[in-house]
């Protein structure tokens, strides 16, 4: 369900010849340094069900498929999808693992502080399986690049797909695109997409935060 334009911080501005142009609403301009709701919990729920159905459509019984949640933020989305697939669509025996990419990143020593690693938990081989990476936001694509290297430590997958809740358009540094996307968002580089989950932050909501 699309929101009214006004709620997205936009309004229709009439010009000559009855042509309307989209401009940021005065409130949105005043509310600099603010955060705007991109998706509320109801919308997230609908999207999660759609993504689960799309996975189901492609992978059927998941016998040759493994879901890999990317640490640290992709695991919540992965757990949710797993729950929906198991409880609502009665899919049994879905293999799911958690993958940490810290040691596989290409920006070591370039940031301010070393990144702290998270747990990797993949207790199966991915040899000849269809792997689905699950992450909350796709931005530059560099994490996915690292994940592609990391997954090779667990075998040679038959193919690798990518599922993201939020796909930030026009911000890619690498030729990587999602196979399943929740919502596509146009955000400028100064803006940040914040995905929150009920089990971690108290409610399901996606914010667009401008600095």
């Amino acid at each position, binding site marked *: 369900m699309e929101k009214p334009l006004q709620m997205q911080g936009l309004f229709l501005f009439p010009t000559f010849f009855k042509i309307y142009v989209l401009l940021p609403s005065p409130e949105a301009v005043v509310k600099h340094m603010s955060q705007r709701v991109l998706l509320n919990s109801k919308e997230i729920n609908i999207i999660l069900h759609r993504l689960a159905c799309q996975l189901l459509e492609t992978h059927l019984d998941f016998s040759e498929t493994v879901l890999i949640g990317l640490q640290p933020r992709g695991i919540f989305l992965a757990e949710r999808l797993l729950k929906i697939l198991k409880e609502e669509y009665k899919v049994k025996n879905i293999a799911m693992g958690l993958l940490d990419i810290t*040691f596989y990143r290409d920006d*070591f*020593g370039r940031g301010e502080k070393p990144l702290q690693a998270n747990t990797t938990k993949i207790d199966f081989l991915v040899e000849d399986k269809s792997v689905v990476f699950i992450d909350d936001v796709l931005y530059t694509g560099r994490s996915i690049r690292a994940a592609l290297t990391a997954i090779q*430590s667990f075998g040679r997958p038959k193919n690798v797909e990518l599922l993201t809740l939020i796909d930030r358009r026009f911000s890619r540094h690498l030729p990587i695109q999602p196979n399943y996307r929740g919502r596509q968002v146009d955000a400028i580089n100064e803006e940040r997409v914040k995905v929150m989950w009920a089990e971690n932050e108290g409610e399901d909501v996606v914010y667009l935060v401008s600095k």
Partner: protein
Amino acid sequence: MSELSVKHLLGIKYLNKKDIHLIFETADHYKDVINRSITKVPTLRDSTIANIFFEYSTRTKLSFELAEKRLSADVVNFSAGQSSVKKGETLIDTVNNILSMKVDMVVMRHPNPGAGVFLSKHVSAAIINAGDGAHEHPTQALLDSYSIREKYGEVGGKNVVIVGDILHSRVALSNIFALKLLGANVKVCGPKTLIPKYIESLGVGVETNLKQALEWCDVANMLRVQNERMDVSYFPSTREYTQQFGINKDILQELDKEIVIMHPGPINRGVEITSDVADSEQSIILDQVENGVAIRMAVIYLLAAKIK
């Protein structure tokens, strides 16, 4: 907290409790990595590390080299025996020449205490002390505490006795610092002549009766008698040392509990420890070696991240 408080690892003395916990948590992840079918990660693929050993070493050198290679760093090895050190080159000159070849980190073992500290003041690379004389051997102490943590879940509150040649042992000193930082109770045990005079000032107990020490402890860390560092005789004979301070199956069976046996290696079988103990279920000597690689990967990773 995701950063060490130091730029070099010169000794446990310079670390705080948070540093040690960070190293342990990072090592947990590396232990996971080295148990995969592909044990290599690309993290340090643009770093070069020099292993400079002015003293003999088997485990430490191999362990460091494996750790570096599993992090994808480029490695150069240097042993003083086959080098221009024999022609009279000084330590700083030797290392500076190696650094001119664009080396980011130096792992050094040296017979003189304080060699690492000295070097860290004069060269720009990150220094890891792999043993400096009878002073410190920080990565060994870290892997020892890490192995205790792995066995018991935590180090704090455990009773650890370090048995043997405390006077000449860098492992003993680093272990005391690390164990005390982590909240363990520490005793040293050995012939009076091989226990430093003011060791109690480090907050450790002294015990000269091995039996009593073993009854008190949860973990016994057995050290080698360092004959090569002894200029005079510290005890009448090796046979007598073994009778008083050597550990064997009979002594362990007399105890009313099962303790964990550790040894930093190299083992002198039949002197400080008999083969049946060294190879028993109670011994975690080979776990220590495995953990050594993970600990060294963690240390190298965390220090490399501080190189700007």
